[in-house]
């Protein structure tokens, strides 16, 4: 509770025992750490507002917004990039089909974010910064936010060049660069299975193991000893596990693509290609 009593410059010291009336006296004893909104909060907001206005005005005078050539539907620039805040998704598009990377994954991201308060039932950490009371929640969130989202935006902005190939910073963006890669499906790569039906079956089985079996194995192994899991309950656990495994599965597939040229884990009739 040390933070709460830190004195803010000019905010009054805690009111002494002598106060205006009996009610105010009792009140000041009950909530000793309250200060008036006016002037303390309002002037702080005014200050922050003034600084933000000043910064954005100076920035706007110094740096011009870009305006390229007029729109030409027949001429596509190379590379053709989405707005920077969507570059994370465009990056994932390299590794997954549009229906997954452009629709399913963003939906899971948004729904997953919304669901957080309902699956995080840890009462600790409410209203202060702390890592050790919330190790799992903070680690997973930092991974998802910094590694999966922010770093992909940075890669998409600075490292991806013409043809969506990787270019080191400072490297010349050669529009004619090509890299020859042959991608094969998971079953073919690791088990040598070429028949599409069998390949799809093995892929589906792997996904089932990843999403269905592994979480249940973990549950069975840790349930008895873990009070957290017991409080969480099966429904919340499943939601958490599915979201977690899908996020990790995305990372795993990226590694399989980059390291082993795996095209799809499972490819079925051109409709469900993961």
């Amino acid at each position, binding site marked *: 509770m040390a933070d709460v009593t830190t004195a803010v410059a000019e*905010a*009054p*010291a805690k*009111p*002494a025992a*002598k*106060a*205006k009336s009996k009610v105010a006296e009792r009140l000041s004893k009950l909530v000793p750490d309250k*200060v*008036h909104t006016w002037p303390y909060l309002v002037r702080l907001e005014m200050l922050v507002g*003034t600084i933000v206005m000043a910064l954005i005005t100076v920035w706007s005078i110094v740096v011009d917004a870009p305006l390229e050539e007029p729109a030409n539907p027949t001429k596509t620039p190379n590379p053709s990039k989405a707005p920077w805040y969507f570059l994370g998704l465009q990056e994932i598009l390299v590794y997954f089909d549009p229906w997954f990377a452009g629709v399913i994954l963003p939906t899971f991201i948004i729904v997953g974010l919304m669901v957080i308060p309902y699956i995080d039932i840890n009462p600790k950490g409410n209203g202060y910064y702390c890592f050790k009371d919330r190790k799992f929640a903070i680690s997973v969130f930092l991974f998802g936010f910094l590694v999966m989202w922010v770093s992909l935006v940075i890669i998409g902005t600075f490292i991806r060049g013409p043809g969506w190939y990787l270019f080191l910073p400072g490297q010349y963006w050669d529009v004619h660069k090509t890299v020859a890669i042959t991608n094969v499906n998971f079953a073919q790569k690791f088990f040598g299975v070429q028949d599409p039906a069998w390949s799809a079956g093995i892929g589906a089985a792997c996904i089932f193991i990843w999403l269905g079996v592994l979480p249940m194995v973990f549950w069975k192994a840790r349930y008895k000893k873990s009070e957290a899991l017991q409080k969480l309950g099966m429904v919340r656990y499943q939601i958490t596990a599915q979201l977690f495994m899908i996020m990790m599965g995305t990372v795993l597939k990226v590694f399989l693509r980059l390291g082993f040229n795996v095209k799809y884990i499972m490819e079925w009739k051109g409709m469900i290609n993961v």
Partner: protein
Amino acid sequence: MPANKEDGTNPEGHIWRIAPTRRDFVGFLGWGAVLTSIGIGTLAWVRLMYPRVLFEPPSQFKLGKPIEYAPRSVADKWIRAYRFWLVRFDDRFVAVSATCTHLGCTPRYLNTEDKFKCPCHGSGFRGFSSGWKVIATNFEGPAPRPLERYKLTLADDGQIQVEKAIVFRLDKDESEKPGAFLPYA
């Protein structure tokens, strides 16, 4: 300067103190800066509302060679297109605006009665026989002042050119200013 009370308030503190402190001064500077920037911003917005380049339809038109117009005539050839009469006197041309100075309707030239007459409220303006100085002066009806005249020049190719953006008003004694008529004998 009275000190804060126990609850932190200071009712006797004024911003106009008999002896402002350095803190008051900096405060004045700060607020002065904020208000100045708001004021400048407002002025800048007003300036922003007047662009430097306007894309408006053209107001200069060529009207053909002077010999195409009968001497001593009021030509209504350009009424539909550009809303004025081109009047040829013995020694000059005058472009009389066909916008009634009462409420903006288009008058008619009545040759037999030698006057311009506005159908909306009956304003009447002097006709051809009153001469180049007086023509289109209001004499009856609610019109407050004479019909305006547009600037006339002779273009390089010998055509008469009217500039509707430049206007001459008889009630301001502008009938003899250069451009209010085109000398042509």
